[in-house]
């Protein structure tokens, strides 16, 4: 479960499929470290429901490590799994509600990751290492990025539903995670509004997708997050 555990050989195996694909890269040239071309759903190991749960697990691994790095940055600082030094902003959780929420949400994302890992057993996808550029982000940028990551998680779970077998036993579990990430999303946008006066945007407006959350397909989600996944 520790991202450091992943061996480079398992990453290479996983990424072998990606390299074979002719998909155009969405990675900005400035992020030469990122996996390129972007991962696609065909790179996710397994078939059927296992593949869908592995896709969800890949996202939970990313979210868990993201929060880990964010909390380091917001508090005492530290080093991410790639060895990048993250200087701490030394914000005291006891006096900063947003930091308390970030710590708590990070714990929940680790629990999601661990739950899906235990569901899949030896079929679980290996973890990556991630570079989010957290070391240079401000408090506001971090909360904004967390809100975006959680919102992407909600849309990703929605976009994954058609890939499950009908009546899949995993669907309620995926839904239970999706709803939790929706709460996180809403709360983070509320904090952005309260602390930084960012416009209030906690939930879909009536004119957005009939007032409901919108799905994002796996290939769209993987294209968006591949820029944070490190290959070497």
């Amino acid at each position, binding site marked *: 479960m520790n991202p450091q555990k992943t061996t480079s050989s398992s990453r290479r195996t996983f990424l072998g499929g990606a390299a074979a694909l002719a998909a155009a890269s969405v990675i900005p040239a400035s992020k030469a470290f990122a996996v390129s071309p972007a991962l696609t759903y065909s790179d996710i190991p397994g078939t059927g429901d296992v593949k869908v749960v592995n896709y969800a697990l890949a996202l939970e691994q990313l979210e868990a490590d993201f929060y880990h790095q964010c909390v380091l940055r917001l508090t005492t600082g530290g080093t991410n799994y790639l060895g990048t030094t993250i200087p701490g902003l030394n914000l005291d959780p006891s006096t900063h509600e947003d930091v308390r929420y970030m710590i708590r949400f990070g*714990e929940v994302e680790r629990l999601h990751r661990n739950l899906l890992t235990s569901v899949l057993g030896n079929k679980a996808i290996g973890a990556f290492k991630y570079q989010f550029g957290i070391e240079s982000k401000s408090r506001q940028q971090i909360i904004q990025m967390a809100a975006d990551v959680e919102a992407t998680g909600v849309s990703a779970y929605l976009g994954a539903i058609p890939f499950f077998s*009908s009546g899949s036993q995993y669907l309620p579990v995926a*839904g239970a995670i999706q709803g939790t990430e929706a*709460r*996180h999303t809403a709360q983070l946008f509320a904090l952005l509004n309260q602390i930084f006066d960012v416009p209030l945007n906690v939930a879909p407006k009536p004119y957005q997708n009939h007032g409901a959350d919108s799905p994002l397909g796996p290939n769209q989600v993987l294209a968006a997050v591949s820029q944070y996944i490190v290959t070497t």
Partner: protein
Amino acid sequence: MFELDQIRRDAPTRRRFMKLMGAAGIGAAAMRLVETPEAYAADVASRYAGGASADAAATVSPDAKTNHFPGIPGRNVNEQALNFALTLELLEADLYRQALNAASGHSNSAPLSTAPTGYRLKVPAGSIGAGASADAFDYLRIFAYVEATHRDFLITTIKSMGGTPVKANPRGYKLPPGIKPNLSSILGAILPLEETGVRAYLGAIPFVTNNTIAQAAAEIFSTEARHSAVINTVLGNDAGPHKMAGDQSVVPKPPADNALEYFLAPSVVLERASAFFK
């Protein structure tokens, strides 16, 4: 490995494992921003592709013991699930209308204004801090229109599938007694509706045999989770999820109280909803 004992115990025995559309269908479904409920409902109906009448596996059981949506009409379990959702959205939309009227000094019977800008906060904030009362009122105002949109979407979707949407309770709906004329008391009365809505959708989705319908339901489900989170926090509660009376978990041993949404069986939801029926 885990066993979904609770879900399995309730699961329909004749569930057919339909292979739905592959990746191609997903592209079209993504990023549906700024569209009419009618357009999306037609999209759901077209992707459902005649399954409503042809889907024998989804037929409502004549045995009351295995009817997962007791008293809810529909030609098959998917249509029943949508009508179950509509039963709740009719209730939520009307109680939001009443709550918004109460917070804005309008008459209880006033219909929802054509635009959210027609409302201004006219009651004290109650326990909500002065700095948060504008946001809290915004939640009430905007969510009222969102719930009305969910209601209209479900009506349109059921009709698009050739079904008959359930009607609102002819005698109407009533807010719980004892609400004080302040914003925190009014939002405190609305919160259980949202939290029950979250649990209702999660409890209904396992019975849906069509993933397009499940997806449409899940889109509303997580929106209600968002509403619940921020209403909780303006009232000084944790954003959740947190376990409430009667809640069931999707796994036998949840890793923490706040890591996974909870669900309620449809029959339990309907019983609770009936308390708001006049």
